[in-house]
């Protein structure tokens, strides 16, 4: 038993999750799960593993099947194929209420007819925890989410952030083997969302809580998760640590979905010389993956962080500034590379951030870190349904 932040004690694994006392380290395994809604396949042989104590975010556009994944794991949707294992136990045929899960919905789903304390106590009551112990635990949980004074409030007297905190406390109360978060902060305004994201991350790691988090907001996913899984049309596209995923999205779909603006078609020759629309961009460093494979056209992504104004003229690449938008402390610049006049400007667009204010129309020499260049796979059969980014 560990003391967590001096505030809450994690008890032994709850016995309501039948046979949950399995091998330590065994978290969730979603094994080739398919879910069918009528004739459409909402989940298509979806496989994902969440280690014990790990937080995995499932990121995808709306309608990609990410909420269906949660419902399938929760046992709220019948599986058309595959199986779900929690702590090594096959959950097939186990009804939702015996799975030992916690779930937090976007608009919190609080029981309007119960007070805050009774909402939190609901799962404990079902477990048959005696009243004095229950009250203690409710007080602990409300303290944990910072709502000590609100025990007797009704849900409709709470602010959006408070309601989410109550929903979290309620989901955590029965000490679920897996906490599932369905767009938990989606209905809140940005400042509150950022604040709660921080609190939630802190809390989950403090508790060592295994969690599956579904969202369409990549900021939220990156901030909360140990690993991020990108889903599209019911299939897992990729799963990786946030920073690695950002630096190397792997496919055009993921790169666009993550909001990378610089997705280019470039030509690489055998020496690693990169050119775009006839403009020479420089050479990729020794040992870079793009060096192997001979001369060819390839789709790549260059993160905005790998582009910036050069300190001195003559670096080779120059751009004309088209538009500058200020936000969150940096100037976001949309520019066009200067080069062979006949190519359309869209094929020469480049975007980057800078702290140096630039004027529209100015010439700006650029420094590109071509070591950050990563090749992308094509869309394949996957139509691009992410937000339009080519403005």
């Amino acid at each position, binding site marked *: 038993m560990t003391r967590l932040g001096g505030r809450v004690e994690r008890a032994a694994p709850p016995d*309501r999750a039948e046979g949950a006392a399995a091998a330590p380290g065994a978290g969730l395994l979603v094994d080739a799960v398919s879910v069918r809604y009528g004739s459409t396949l909402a989940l298509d042989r979806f496989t994902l593993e969440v280690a014990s104590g790990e937080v995995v975010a499932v990121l995808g556009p709306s309608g990609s099947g990410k909420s269906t994944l949660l419902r399938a794991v*929760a*046992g*709220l949707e019948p599986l058309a194929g595959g199986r779900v294992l929690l702590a090594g136990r096959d959950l097939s045929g186990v*009804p*939702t*209420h*015996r*799975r*030992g*899960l*916690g*779930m937090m*919905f976007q*608009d919190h*789903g609080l*029981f*309007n*007819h119960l007070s805050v304390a009774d909402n939190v106590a*609901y*799962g404990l009551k*079902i*477990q048959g925890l005696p009243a004095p112990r229950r009250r203690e635990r409710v007080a602990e949980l409300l303290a944990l989410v910072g709502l000590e004074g609100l025990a007797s409030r009704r849900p*409709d007297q709470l602010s959006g952030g408070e309601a989410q905190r109550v929903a979290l406390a*309620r*989901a955590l*109360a*029965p000490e*679920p083997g897996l906490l*599932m978060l369905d767009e938990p902060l989606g209905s809140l305004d940005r400042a509150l969302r950022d604040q709660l994201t921080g609190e939630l991350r802190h809390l989950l790691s403090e508790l060592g809580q295994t969690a599956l988090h579904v969202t369409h907001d990549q900021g939220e996913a990156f901030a909360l998760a140990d690993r991020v899984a990108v889903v599209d049309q019911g299939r897992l596209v990729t799963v990786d640590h946030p920073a690695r995923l950002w630096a190397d999205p792997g496919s055009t779909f993921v790169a666009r979905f993550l909001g990378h603006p610089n997705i280019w078609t470039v030509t690489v020759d055998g020496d690693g010389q990169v050119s775009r629309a006839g403009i020479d961009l420089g050479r990729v460093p020794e040992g870079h993956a793009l060096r192997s494979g001979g001369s060819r056209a390839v789709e790549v992504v260059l993160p905005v962080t790998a582009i910036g104004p050069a300190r001195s003229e003559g670096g080779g690449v120059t751009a004309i500034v088209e538009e500058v938008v200020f936000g969150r402390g940096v100037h976001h610049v949309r520019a066009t590379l200067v080069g062979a006049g006949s190519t359309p400007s869209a094929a020469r667009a480049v975007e980057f951030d800078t702290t140096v204010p630039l004027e529209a129309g100015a010439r700006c020499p650029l420094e590109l870190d071509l070591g950050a260049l990563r090749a992308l796979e094509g869309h394949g059969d996957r139509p691009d349904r992410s937000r339009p980014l080519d403005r």
Partner: protein
Amino acid sequence: MSRAGLAARAAQATVPAAFLAVLVVWPLVAVMDRSLTDVGPGDIVEILGRGSVRRVLWFTLWQAALSATLTLALGLPIAHVLARYRFPGRAALRALVIVPFVLPTVVVAAAIGAAFDRLGLRVERSLWAVLAAHVFFNLAVVVRVVGGHWARLDRRQVEVAATLGASPAQAWFTITLRQLVPVLAGSFLLVFLFCFTSFGVIRILGGLRRATIETEIYRYAITRQEFDVAAVLAALQIVVVLVLAGATARFQRRHATVQRRGTAPVPVVGVARRLHVAAVVTLVLAVLGLPVAVLIEQSLRVGSGYGLANYRALTERVDLLPLSAVQALGNSLLFAAVAGVVASAVGVTAALVIARGGAAGRALETLSLLPLGVSAVTLGFGYLVGLTVFDLRRSMWLIPAAHAVIGLPFVLASLVPALRSIDPRAREAAATLGASPPVVRRTVDWPLTRRALATGAGFAAAVSIGEFGATSFLGRGEESFTAPLAAVRLLASPGAALRGQALALSVVIGGVVAVLAAAIEFRRDPGVTVL
């Protein structure tokens, strides 16, 4: 607000206020006055202490409680299926459930009586026939009110409960039922109120032994001409109804929970669910369809075969009636038209005042909803006691006026929400574009509310055609005898020939109302619901 504008508003409020003062407040005050000053406390205690009166009070109470309980028990599974499942014919079933509520009591009572006869059950003095008619009539209230609420419950709360470890049964009891309790209690009180003031059903099906406060008011006032006893009973009725209505409103205000989102009905999957839905659909068809089917079948019965003889006979006057049934129906239609027009005219002025809100609006709203709770019988008796000036009570035009009063709540229920839903910015935009207030009213308010007004007027007319309670006190001679009065008189008389005519007349009345209701439903603004 200019001085002229204020004066116009005051004038606007005066019309409905005066109408309601003469036709609602004054008669009720007259009843109370009669029982309190003319009869006196000692006699009141003596009258209420009589064994016969106490038996009536007791029966009124328990039959209403039992009716409401049965209605709720039968209505719940129907409400559940309609709220939760999507299946072919669901819309038709929803519509069918509403039909009995718009049917006149006379028709309902005749249908239930015919069904009991056909099934070989003893109708006369049959408690079960009364209960069946009350259930038939009020099922719509439970299904609409409870079902509407049920459909708005957030299904995911049950799912959350499941993730927290609640079994389906536990989730149902701790979440679904718990959230339905206020609306269950509310609809129970409402049905109780309707059955407590039930008149036509008891008169027709209750026989001689089954009497409620309502039928006793009628018997003492009309048959025995003992106005004092009738006044005491009517005063008691007024007090009980006001207390009940107040309690219902309070209870619903206090327990109103805002449901943020509903859940779309789900398709019926699996054998168990299919059987469940099929059983409920069958139940609805049996309970609601059978009596109507039997009524029509029996009305066509001639000797041992079938024919239209009963319908043809409606054109001839029988000794029992002051005029032929068809002429009575003519009176009914005339009164319905007048009542519809009067209710609309008063309704428009009242709705404008009410929609503006404020103390005057709220007072007028309460006043105009009074006839919905206070029974028509009490109102009719109030006219006999109160409207002695110029002998108003003998005027045939008092009937459509009374019907307009009873129909007014329906006009307002349709019109006020429509007026309130008009975005004030639409009016402001029209004004900035150069429209004067009358032009705004004609070009903005009127197009947006005329369908709601038509709906309300149609309802008022439908209510008028079937109205029986107040009319029993007012309809006398050839000019003022209505079709429901004729049907009841025919039903009460022995003899197969007259019974056949009574059933035929009931079918005709029901048919007219059904056509009217269908027209309303068809033309109705989808956003407007009266029930």
